[in-house]
């Protein structure tokens, strides 16, 4: 079975089409929607490349806290089990939060 171009390459092709051909032909609301769609295609491309690393970073961060998954962590935060461990929590969450921003909007990182 041949899957060529791959998914990231297809996303990149659609992004280029939206930016170079669709956007110049539109104005107003539709121009803006096409820009949003092009940005979404760029997110898809980055997620296809970096998504697995993001997931790994998050799992590792949770494991460092002795927590199995997000639901358990949310529960622990709400019940106060993590009170007093805020510095440790922030350090554990930073890699996955940064990785998610890197995929969604790298310009937001500083």
């Amino acid at each position, binding site marked *: 079975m041949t899957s060529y171009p791959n998914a990231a390459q297809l996303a990149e092709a659609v992004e280029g089409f939206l930016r170079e051909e669709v956007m110049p032909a539109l104005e107003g609301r539709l121009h803006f929607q096409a820009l949003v769609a092009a940005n979404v295609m760029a997110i898809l491309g980055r997620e296809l490349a970096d998504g697995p690393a993001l997931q790994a970073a998050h799992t590792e961060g949770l494991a460092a806290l002795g927590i199995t998954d997000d639901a358990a962590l949310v529960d622990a935060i709400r019940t*106060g089990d993590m009170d007093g461990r805020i510095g440790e929590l*922030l350090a554990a969450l930073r890699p996955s939060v940064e990785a*998610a921003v890197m995929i969604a*909007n790298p310009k937001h990182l500083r």
Partner: protein
Amino acid sequence: MVLAGSLADVVGSALGCRVEICDLVRLSGGASRETWSFDAAHDGVVEELILRRGPDALGDTIGPTMLLEAACMREAARVGVPMPDVLAAAADSAELGAPYVVMRRIAGETIARKILRDDAYADVRPQLAAQCGEILGNLHQMDPAALPQMSDGYALDALRAVLTDSGVLSPMLELAMRWLEQHRPPPTRTTVVHGDFRNGNLVVGPDGVRAVLDWELVHLGDPMEDLGWLCTRAWRFGGAPPVGGFGEYDDLVAAYEKRSGVAVDRDVLRWWELLGTVKWGVICVVQANRHLVGGQRSVELAAIGRRVCEQEYDCLNLLEELT
């Protein structure tokens, strides 16, 4: 166009003469309200106007808030907030197919990136933080008795409930909410709160802020909410200074204190800045769900969902600073 015909009736009866509607264009932006720009011509005069119209499907819930918006705009003008005149408003869908407000169009820029970067605004940019402080000092003197019943704002408990109902798990937003809950400052005062005072809702000209738009989130609450919201990173649009990407805390606070006569506690301001960051994160989830489960298909709404992680990142940095 059907809308133009109905608009001619609405504007004609507001102005007391027959008008012709031209250049009716739907503007971009505004995910929960339609905004239209148009001109109404009569007797050799051209009135430049704006229509804000709620989606018909939400008529029953949006109708009363349209009247509230109109009342707020009139009361805000009375206390010295720069405002467009309101010509007409309705809570039902009889005239224009949805509840609406018609107001005068104020020339100026609302697009944050232009206000923050274009040369035309270079001279006024350093004054905007102080202008916002003055305007908020006035705005918080609005008389609630002049307005219809207002809903409560998104308090912390409400935000958590909305996030829980969404089905989205965010340990980072939960952690921020936990910290906010445990460090909640006592209320400073209770006033009318605009609820969405920020870049995008301010019409700015080379001389400064000309109008404050978009009163759909107005409520009674702690006025520090408006100052904190203006400072959240999401509304800086890439600008470095903390107040709206254009100014410093000192300028905003000094002007606000002078106009309102009320001292601002910087720690309280930062608490509200963090709350604003969490709130925008939760709103991003809600917007994405309008597309995913709410039946309002929109790539724009879907994309807003991916901004949740930006708020998580900003919460993380703020919490590191505050703890």
